């Protein structure tokens, strides 16, 4: 097995990986290589033929494939190399990477820096424990999306969607457009998990019913799914006896959560944040292993590809500039306070002078109106960001300007929390 020397090696050729690679190449990294396991770069965007991409980043409304296309072209123009059909088998803390490919055989790479951009996977039926029989016709929404949009087949004609994640909402509409009967979208929680715009554009505009605080508790059918039992749930999400309803269907789509794919990160020895399920990163998206960076859905499950791009450029820029000799500065921890599920990055080097504003991404625990996100240090309130409305399904992005950063002590942990509102 031959060893290849690479400056910035990117694992994953979706929007995160491509964005990081282009940024690294534009900022001085000479040899930048993207490793992609699928046959085409673009990642999950290749099956996202719906619109709504690029509104923030390009100020244009694009489909997912168009959005990916722009990055694939730019990667070519900037001299980023992309190896498709290549699976990364191992990433070592020493930044050695082993790959397997039908085209290139087994390869070994030694990289100066690595960007992890493997994306996420969908939670399954068994992970949320839906009882009943095990017929065919049960798909995660993303798998059904691939079958429908790339392979050219639709799973069935009478569809129940469980979970109101964005892919579930998009697929409810997609199935309707294919002429299917969509029985409804069932959501365990009292609020939807997807973007508000998707609830409006995918369900309301197509008269697809949304059933909040209801879930699927059992599956019927011997060979092919024939129906499901739905049940209302109480405040603790336990099914309420007596509310069972049988809903016939030949297809059940699940949109019940996304999980960052961090098997390789674990091999690389990177610390994982139990709140995000992704690597613990600093403001440059460097993980706890020096020279190994991470961005996109592998770090936190984003709502928008545009946000992924922003994060990937942070990682790509830092990966290009990574120099092993330079000792890292002291990092302050970012602590997650009341009302928040997580904050990314989890560590910040406050000492460095910044021209660019510092971006903080976070998710709320519960939907609330008219709140403040408060940044404090040592119990002292330092900065306050008013928010008209927050909900768990929509990431909150705070931009902390360099002036604001001047308010903070450089050697103290910072805490973020939600205050006020209702």
């Amino acid at each position, binding site marked *: *097995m031959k060893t290849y020397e690479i400056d910035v090696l990117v694992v994953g050729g979706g929007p995160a990986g491509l964005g990081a690679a282009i940024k690294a190449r534009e900022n001085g990294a000479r040899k930048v290589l993207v490793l992609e*396991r699928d046959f085409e770069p673009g990642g999950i965007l290749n099956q996202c033929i719906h619109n709504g991409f690029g509104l923030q980043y390009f100020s244009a409304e694009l489909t997912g494939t168009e959005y990916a296309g722009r990055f694939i072209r730019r990667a070519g123009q900037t001299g980023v190399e992309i190896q498709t*059909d290549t*699976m990364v*088998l191992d990433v070592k803390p020493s930044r050695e990477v*082993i790959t*397997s*490919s*039908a*085209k*290139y*055989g*087994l390869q*070994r790479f030694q990289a100066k820096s690595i960007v992890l951009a493997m994306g996420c*996977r*969908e939670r*399954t*039926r*068994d*992970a949320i*424990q839906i*009882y*009943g*029989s*095990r*017929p*065919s016709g049960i*798909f*995660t929404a*993303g*798998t059904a999306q*691939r*079958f*429908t949009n*790339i*392979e*050219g*087949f*639709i*799973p*069935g*004609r009478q569809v129940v969607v469980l979970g109101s994640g964005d892919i579930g909402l998009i697929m409810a509409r997609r199935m309707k457009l*294919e*002429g*299917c009967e969509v029985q409804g979208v069932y959501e365990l929680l009292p609020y939807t998990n997807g973007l508000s715009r998707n609830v409006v554009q995918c369900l309301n505009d197509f008269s697809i019913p949304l059933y909040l605080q209801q879930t699927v*508790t*059992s599956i019927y059918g*011997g*060979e*092919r799914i024939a129906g499901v039992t739905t049940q209302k749930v109480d405040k603790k999400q336990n099914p309420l006896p007596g509310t069972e309803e049988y809903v016939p269907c*030949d297809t059940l789509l699940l949109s019940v959560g996304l999980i960052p794919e961090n*098997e390789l990160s*674990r091999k690389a020895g990177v610390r994982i944040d139990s709140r995000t399920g992704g690597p613990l990163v600093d403001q440059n998206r460097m993980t706890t292993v020096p020279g190994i960076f991470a961005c996109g859905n592998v770090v936190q499950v984003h709502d928008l590809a545009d946000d992924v791009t922003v994060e990937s450029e942070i990682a790509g820029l830092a990966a290009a500039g990574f120099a092993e000799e330079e000792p890292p500065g002291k990092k302050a921890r970012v602590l997650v306070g009341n009302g928040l599920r997580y904050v990314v990055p989890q560590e910040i080097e406050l000492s460095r002078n910044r021209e660019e504003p510092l971006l903080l991404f976070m998710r709320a625990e519960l939907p609330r109106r008219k709140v403040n996100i408060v940044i404090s240090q040592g119990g002292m309130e330092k900065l306050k960001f008013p928010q008209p409305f927050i909900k768990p399904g929509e990431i909150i992005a705070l931009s902390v300007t360099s002036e604001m950063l001047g308010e903070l002590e450089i050697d103290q942990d910072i805490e973020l929390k939600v205050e006020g509102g209702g």
Partner: protein
Amino acid sequence: MKKFDVVIIGGGVVGCAIARELSRYNLKIALVEKETELGSGTSKANTGLVHSGVNVDNTTLKGRLNLQANPLFDRLTFELNIPFVRNGSLVIAQNREDRQALLRDLDEARKNGVKDVRWLSREELLGKEPAINPDSLGAIYAPSGGIICPFEYTLALGQNAHKNGVVFFLGNRVLKILQEKDRVLGVETERGRLIAPYVVNAAGVFADEFDSAVDVPGIKTRRGQYLVYDRDYPVQINNTIFPRPTEVSKGIIVTPTVHGNLMIGPNAEEVEGKDSLETTAAGINEVIKGAQKLVPDIDTSAVIRMFSGLRAVASSDFVIKSTKKPRGLVLAAGIQSPGLTAAPVIGKLVVELIEELGLGLSPKSSFQAERPSPIRVGDLDYEERAKLVEKDNNYGQVVCRCEGITRGEIRDAILAPLGAVTIDGIKRRTRAASGRCQSGFCGPRLVELLKEFASISPLEATLRGGASRILKYRSKELLFKAGEKVEDL
């Protein structure tokens, strides 16, 4: 009309083991299985254990066969090239009553010749398995207990029998056992008659279905539910952990699988119907509670799969005999636990029974005991793997990312004798789609590979045969008016 010496009904582990044993002799043998894949019934949904023989009653047939079978597995799994580990069994004393009873069972196990069986004190037990409930009072330890992959075991027995001349009819249901003047004539199947003077009924939970006139016991079905965990689940054990058995069952067990997943189950519930393969909230909770008594840290945080399996129960024991009426019929029925362990000896026993009925047996000089190992890319180090990919680049393309299974391995599983024709068939042979994403990513690729290597069109591809199609329509198909076709656009 096809003529054979022996027709075996049922392509589960028992039927395949019988087929392999019979294939050692100069005979014309047929095996008929109603499903399109071998091992689609009880053999696919069980605990995957080779029982040590602790806690068996040697006055029962199933107990004796268990004791005889366990020592055979080293050679058998070597011949069949299938993974097998003697990981050891621990039967835990959870209270004083358990301890007294288990100490008696230990004496019994020693008398029965269970190899190296001994008592572990509480300290020894916790030293060996730190995850075990610290309130345990000790355990019987039987190092000869083992774990095996039930799918590959069944398939390998079948493939080896096939190699030695057994003719397999898959996806073909036996409707009736044909008789004339109280003598077996053969079987009537969905696709014609197979004539044979000897018929073996190894049809598992369906063994009582072929002809009510035949002297076959009624089969009840007992369901057991299971949970399988992610390989990265931090709760790990090495041995197979049993509670003290009850009259009915061996209890809810905590075990590693031979592929490194933690698995818990089964409960035991009598169910109506031979297709009652549901999991239920009550059953799964019973399994979790039972497992937690043995290993308290077990929760549901990393469950990747729940499933149910059915056991065929004819009486409290196996029913392996030749019937008086009609002559020529041999039953291997009611094969509940420890059927997976006993199968190789059941095979030998059935051969003896057929010989007693008058079939002359002459050993076949061309018999080959070995079933070649499929290539398992994950077992190779990187250098070996690089060489393999140079020779055949299909082994370079990883299709199932969770389990690391390559296009080459999936191709081999489809093209091998008695190859995979369904998504589940690929899964059971290769482990593709059995990981944490449960086919979310590789599902579409597997459909494609069935088309490429088995010429099964995506609209015909099934999860497990019959009406279990994965995809029902082409895109846009539902939008057309009646009579319109995609091609008309």
